[in-house]
């Protein structure tokens, strides 16, 4: 028995060292991502202020692909917002992925669409297309493609097959773009012809009023759960992705707001219909494809290209969303496990992939293990409770301050104004986000592993809220 206790004590020393390294590593990552994120946003702001931009009357042709499954409440508003973009060369393709509600009917009636027999160039194999509708009366071509249900990735592949432009942008059916979002996301392409993909920022639209594509009013959402997600999104989009951008290491371009070069995407095989994390999988696929074929490429992140999307408002929906995200992460990482510690992939392997593996995918297990070791330490009378409380306090303070910093860095992005009330609310929320939301997400991640093999392709639906798109242009 004594030997067992001694063994446990020795093991706990090693575990202690592990956790110190783990936490210092994570803190260092968060620190650098916040500092680099804030400084780059500040730099971008100065660039804009001092006319450091390219000609803004040249347009790269873009196909906007909007996959939709049972989105009758939001799809018309989304398409309306797309029709009012300040961009001249684009088309809109809505792909109805076997909806069982009135998604298609709403679009056909509202936009006076006509059924046509348009040939589909099947460059990527997909489920069958059943009907195609077009409306050419608006400033850009609007197409509705109805197809057999095959999942979001399959729907996007149909969109790619249908698209007539050299670039395509994926957009969720519950999302809205600002009038300058398309312009902003396309700008890097004029600056660097190596760019094969650009990712924008996804912001939470709860609490937002958009009129004619411009923010009319914005305040932090009323619900606590949604407000916490605002801070979390800011930390992810305005920090992490900017840091990874510095070494072409972004492994995710959000499916809600991403621009891709069509020919490279086709050559790489398009979206993988066997995964629920199609956005993550595609970007890694593009990295691997370009590295394998020695293509000089870059993936860019554009903090000024903003897409507004609905966040889950209930705990149940939040859990569903995060379970799906984690499933997608697991699928992507297992599919491309060759990236693990592989010098062929450079910084993507040694920083980006490693980060997602240790601090995203394995985090639930590591933290559970941490809780277990605290319990064990307590049982063996090794726990310094005062130090533990102090440590937790500092950890929470550190995390909270980071979240607040990234929240405030949105000041450097155009059109985002913050009221004093929002700033004070954010100060209170940043602590809650670290202590409450983080553990909700942790639970969701753990539960995603349970029954994974059985449910790996399940896309748990999140409830939508009716959206009204306001336009001052009255017909």
């Amino acid at each position, binding site marked *: 028995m004594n030997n067992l206790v001694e063994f446990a004590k020795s093991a706990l020393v090693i575990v202690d060292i592990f956790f*110190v390294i783990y936490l*210092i590593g994570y*803190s*260092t990552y968060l*620190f650098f991502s*916040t*500092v680099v994120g*804030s400084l780059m946003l*500040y730099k971008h702001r*100065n*660039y804009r*202020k*001092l*006319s*450091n*931009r*390219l*000609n803004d*009357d*040249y347009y*790269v042709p873009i196909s906007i692909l909007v996959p939709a499954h049972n989105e009758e409440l939001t799809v018309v508003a989304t398409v*309306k917002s797309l*029709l*009012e973009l300040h961009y001249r060369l684009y088309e809109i393709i809505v792909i109805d992925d076997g909806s069982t509600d009135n998604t298609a009917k709403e679009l056909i009636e*509202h936009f006076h669409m*006509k059924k*046509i*027999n*348009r*040939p589909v*160039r099947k460059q990527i194999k997909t489920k069958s297309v059943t009907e195609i509708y*077009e409306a*050419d*009366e*608006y*400033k*850009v*071509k609007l197409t509705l493609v109805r197809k057999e249900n095959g999942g979001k990735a399959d729907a996007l592949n149909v969109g790619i097959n249908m698209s007539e432009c050299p670039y395509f942008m994926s957009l969720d059916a519950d999302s809205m773009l600002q009038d300058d979002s398309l312009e902003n996301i396309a700008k890097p392409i*004029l*600056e*660097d*012809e190596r760019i094969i993909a650009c990712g924008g920022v996804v912001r939470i639209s709860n609490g937002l009023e958009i009129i004619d594509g411009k923010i009319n009013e914005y305040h932090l959402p009323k619900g606590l759960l949604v407000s916490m997600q605002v801070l979390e999104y800011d930390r992810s989009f305005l920090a992490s992705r900017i840091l990874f951008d510095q070494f072409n290491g972004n492994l995710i371009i959000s499916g809600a707001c991403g621009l891709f070069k069509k020919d490279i995407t086709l050559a790489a095989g398009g979206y993988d219909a066997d995964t629920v994390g199609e956005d993550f999988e595609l970007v890694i696929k593009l990295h691997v494809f370009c590295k394998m074929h020695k293509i000089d490429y870059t993936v860019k992140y554009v903090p000024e290209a903003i897409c507004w999307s609905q966040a889950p408002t209930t705990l149940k929906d939040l859990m569903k969303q995060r379970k799906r995200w984690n499933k997608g992460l697991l699928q992507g990482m297992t599919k491309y496990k060759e990236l693990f510690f592989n010098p062929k992939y450079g910084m993507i392997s040694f920083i980006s992939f490693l980060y997602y593996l240790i601090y995203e995918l394995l985090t639930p297990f590591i933290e559970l293990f941490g809780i277990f070791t605290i319990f064990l330490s307590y049982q063996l009378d090794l726990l310094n409770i005062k130090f533990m409380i102090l*440590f937790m306090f*500092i*950890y929470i*303070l*550190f995390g909270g*301050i*980071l979240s*607040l*910093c990234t929240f*405030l*860095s949105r*000041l*450097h992005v155009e059109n985002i104004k*913050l009221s004093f009330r929002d700033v004070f609310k954010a100060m209170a929320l940043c602590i809650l986000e670290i202590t409450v939301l983080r553990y909700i997400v942790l639970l969701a991640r753990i539960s995603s592993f349970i029954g994974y093999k059985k449910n790996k392709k399940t896309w748990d639906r999140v409830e939508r809220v009716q959206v009204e798109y306001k*336009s001052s*242009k*009255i*017909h």
Partner: protein
Amino acid sequence: MFDPMIIIYIYIYIIISLILFDLWYTMNDKLQEKRSNRKLKKYKDIIRKQINIMESDSKMDKKHTKRLRWNFRRINNLLVYQDAIKELHEEDSKKVDEYLVLYAPVFQMVLHFYRKKDSIYKAFLASFLSLYYPFHLNNNSIIDEEIMKYVEDKSIYCRENAMLYFYRRGSTTLIINALRIISDHNLYYNKKLLANDLLKFNGNQEELAQKLFQEFQRFSIDFQVSIVNYLRFSKNDLNKEFYNMLISNEYDKEVNLAIIRYFGSKKYEKVLPYLLELLKNTNKEDVEYRIIATQAIKTYDCQEVRLALIRCISDDNWYVRKNATSSLSKMKLTKTDIKKIEAIEDRYGKEMIEYTFLSNVPDKKGGRKVE
């Protein structure tokens, strides 16, 4: 023993500093806005006063010159000055233009001073001069020379704004010199953007087109493609020259494709046999030629062309089929043509025909308002 918590404390300290910086920046921004509004009013009054003095005495006021030279060392002052010029220009453009010409030596000095500054500031200065310097009244060779150096800058924005200056300046020689520098140093300039930007040239477009063509050989392939694309919109008749280039087979494929597109916009009967040959060539390596030719040939409406396009409807390549049907839909088809089209048995060809001819979807985009 080293306490790892020290690292966390350092991080916390730096992050708090960042937060304080962000808060300070916002408050300073709001204060700057108020200061800028006051400064804007002040600059406007000073410039108006100078314009009044200028009307009686056309010499530079030394005090004003000294003030501007001193103020423009700070970019924020130049920003406000630009706003002042913009607003006064809307009131009386003629007088403001004369004022700017008179005080051109100040900008010469500023350009010289900004040589050592960061590219972000140089880009702004080039932008300001491109937007507001009155080239129709006076051309300043010293300013031209300084801006020419900006073309070589590593910053793409600095280069773009310098080129915008030259497009507005309207000097063919300066444009050619700038493009030479960019091409010779292999500096990046998006080829589609170049073709678009050349159309903004304020000077003699015909002269520019002629000089660009004369210099054609010395430019990179990307620039050659851009120049051909630009020349599609030029009034100059370069049909013979481009035809000779096309049949010589000495030019890069991309240049040839651009020339074929050129002949899609500018009709030149002599090129028709060449285009018809391209349509007949089923070599897979040359499919891009066929794709572009099926689109360009619609300008040459005659029976031979229509027959060639009808054959292309059954082509293996999607884009050839699409372009062939699209081109035919814009031509005057005879009954014989229609019968031949209806007789096509190829499944994919039929699909394309049905979509292009029978779907009744309007070809041009409408301006229907969003409801």
